[in-house]
């Protein structure tokens, strides 16, 4: 579909001579590190950016798109990670709006016709959503599926998925990808950008890997192992050391004690975190695990007590109380909870510890420089707005901001969501270094492998049952089975 496409922004070449094709009925996965040109490629394929060199071909014909509307008319549909739906409308109204009101009779909109039509569309694609529901009440997976249905409704023959499953837990991601597979089997051509290698193995027919704007691998999925894909994605300079969790020792002194922590969906939970350990939490959403990190760190009000650094806070406590007890939170949603997009890297890193840097510009500069160096933030410019960084680099800044406050216990809530493998290794190396120095970390992750790789101990939460503890977990399948037991 694309032939020798090149796009440069000023002196930076984002995409260099990429040739890539998708056949009808095929799912073609594209993997690549953050900043490898995936997003730029998508923007070229959908007519957002024009290419500097090369051609776009559809059914063998050269296309000349100057806007997203052109590509959509030609039958290229795109679904992004945060599927944009109008929150306050019902699914039917929203689908009608996005389709250009096909159900309208002259000047009057018919809610009933829209509802019937939308429901038919959803049923046709086996999307388990009621057209009368408000968009704001849909789960992320449902939103993604509705968006897919909308794209089909618009007559798309080529579907481009931009990390659609990145924010979804495994089971919901599977639901969405099963729909994608069905669409492909009906003759749709699918180009799927993803960071999850297991998804590639299970759903893609072909795999391509981008590195630094170049296509470094392309072939049938079965021919390449996950390790080889990661190898392709890593930048060439220097092999990355794999961080193992060492001997997985049970730690030293107790840093924080949590008693009967409970929230809207979380049943009372008590645990201790010891110096030198990474404690993992696993569980399906109905065990209330989604709120756990926020509850711990005071982002949403809960009950129970939190003891740390000689202080005890009774719930509901505020984030500043949690900080005084030694906690720091690297949240799931980068830009809503993690960083101020409009502010610079420096201002973001310095935010939690303003008082420490009052009239100490040099100390602040040194801290920011350390963060940038340790986590390899790119571009390494402290004066750049965080909103201008790629997602993975934003996440590095957020992690660095909290590492710089020297917390006793770092709470990581799905910290590598949408972050490329090389950056993940670096982030975990930084966390492990602090933990070995006598701090501790709590890890929540939608990826079971991550828990077994990095955690010394995992607590498995299940609704209506006491948490089960796994010491030195090493078998992801076993852990996943435990999570699913009701």
């Amino acid at each position, binding site marked *: 579909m694309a032939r020798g496409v090149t796009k440069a922004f000023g002196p930076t070449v984002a995409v260099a001579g990429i040739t890539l094709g998708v056949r009808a009925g095929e799912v073609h996965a594209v993997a690549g590190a*953050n900043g490898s040109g995936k*997003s730029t490629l998508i923007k070229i394929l959908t007519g957002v950016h024009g290419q500097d060199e090369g051609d776009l071909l559809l059914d063998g014909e050269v296309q000349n798109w100057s806007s997203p509307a052109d590509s959509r008319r030609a039958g290229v549909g795109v679904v992004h990670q945060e599927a944009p739906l109008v929150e306050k409308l019902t699914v039917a109204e929203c689908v009608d709006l996005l389709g250009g009101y096909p159900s309208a009779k002259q000047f009057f909109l018919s809610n009933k016709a829209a509802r019937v039509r939308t429901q038919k569309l959803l049923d046709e694609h086996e999307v388990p959503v009621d057209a009368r529901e408000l968009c704001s009440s849909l789960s992320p997976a449902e939103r993604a599926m509705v968006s897919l249905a909308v794209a089909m409704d618009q007559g798309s023959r080529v579907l481009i998925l931009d990390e659609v499953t990145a924010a979804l837990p495994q089971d919901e991601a599977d639901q969405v990808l099963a729909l994608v597979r069905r669409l492909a089997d009906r003759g749709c051509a699918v180009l799927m950008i993803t960071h999850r290698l297991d998804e590639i193995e299970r759903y893609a027919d072909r795999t391509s890997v981008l590195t630094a704007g170049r296509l470094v691998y392309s072939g049938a999925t079965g021919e390449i192992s996950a390790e080889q894909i990661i190898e392709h994605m890593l930048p060439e300079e220097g092999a990355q050391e794999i961080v193992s969790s060492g001997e997985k020792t049970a730690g030293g002194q107790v840093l924080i004690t949590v008693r009967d922590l409970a929230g809207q969906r979380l049943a009372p939970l008590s645990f201790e975190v010891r110096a030198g350990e990474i404690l993992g939490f696993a569980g399906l959403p109905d065990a209330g695990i989604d709120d756990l990190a926020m509850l711990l760190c005071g982002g949403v009000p809960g009950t129970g007590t939190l003891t740390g650094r000689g202080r005890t806070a009774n719930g509901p406590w505020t984030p500043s109380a949690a900080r005084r007890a030694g906690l720091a939170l690297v949240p799931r949603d980068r830009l809503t909870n993690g960083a101020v997009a409009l502010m610079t890297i420096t201002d973001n890193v310095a935010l939690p510890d303003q*008082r420490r840097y009052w009239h100490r510009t040099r100390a602040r500069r040194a801290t920011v420089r350390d963060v940038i160096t340790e986590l390899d933030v790119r571009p390494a410019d402290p004066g750049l*707005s965080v909103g201008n960084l*790629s997602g993975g680099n934003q996440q590095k800044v957020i992690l660095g901001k909290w590492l710089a406050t020297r917390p006793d216990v770092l709470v990581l809530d799905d910290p590598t969501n949408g972050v490329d493998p090389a950056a993940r290794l670096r982030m975990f190396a930084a966390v492990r270094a602090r933990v070995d120095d006598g701090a501790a970390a709590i890890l929540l992750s939608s990826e079971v492998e991550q828990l077994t790789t990095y955690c010394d101990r995992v607590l498995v939460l299940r609704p209506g049952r006491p948490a089960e503890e796994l010491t030195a977990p090493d078998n992801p399948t076993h852990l996943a089975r435990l999570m699913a037991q009701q």
Partner: protein
Amino acid sequence: MAQITNVERPEAVAKEATAPSGSQLGHFAGIAIHKYAQVILLVVLVIGFSLATPRFATQQNWTSLLVSQAVVAMMTLAVLFPLIVGEFDLSVGYSLGFSAMLGAYLTGQNWPVPMILLAMLVFGVFIGVVNGVLNVYFKINSFIATLGMGIILSALTLALSNGAILTTVPGVLETLGRGYVGGIAWAVWAVLLIAVVCYYLLQHTPVGARLYAIGGSERVAFLAGVRTSWYKVLAFGLAGAIVAGAAMFQLGQAGSATPSMGPDLLLPAYAAAFLGVTTFRPGFYNVPGVIVAILLLAVGFNGLSLLGVPFWVQPMFNGLALLIAVLFARLASRRLGAAK
């Protein structure tokens, strides 16, 4: 609202910027022009008007030009604080009117002058704090809360004066409002003092950094341990305090308090604040930007009226200046973003 940046930068930036030094130089020149466009425009206007009419570059003209802008400048500095934390304060105009009326009324009641000034200040802060509490704790949109507060204040102003003009003004305020020190009006000195304090507070203290962070993302600031509620109330309170100061000078300059005083200062103050966003620290409400914006508008008006243009040209100039500056800033930031 006026946070003008470019977030839609492609991933390309994430890779190392390997720009040759030549284009980097051009890049910095671009930033300089972008950041200081208004300063340059101000200088151009001053030179232009000086050449066009001999009456412009006289001491007398400059003195009156600066004095006439002192109260508006204070009002602009006042609205800066709520704007920085992402809120509006529409009550400042009415609040000024009420404070001035309160001062005149208490003078008529033979209160001692220090008590009068204290009462004005306390009331100003009180109004600001109530605005903040309504917004933060009762979760009323600040636009609505402060509008309601403003209307209530206008009623109180009428009640206090019984609809009449009060000419009882403390002598100290008349001296301050009309007197000069070192050839510069007291009012202008006061603006400078307030501006310097605000600048220091906003740019060089943890308080300022936290206020900006709240404006950028209240949730992120909250999770970083900032007591966001307290700081938002503080922002409204500071606005109230500065408005009270502005009311003292307004009362002194006018020599009387009229029930209709104040509301007409609201829009010029906001226009200057928005205009200021485009200068010095583009995308952020900032003190030097606001000062340059006020000077720019004042010089433009003053020069044009000396040249004898029709009376309706002034608001036209102000409106166009605001729109063009914001448009220019947006274009410049987009171009810079693309070039990087």
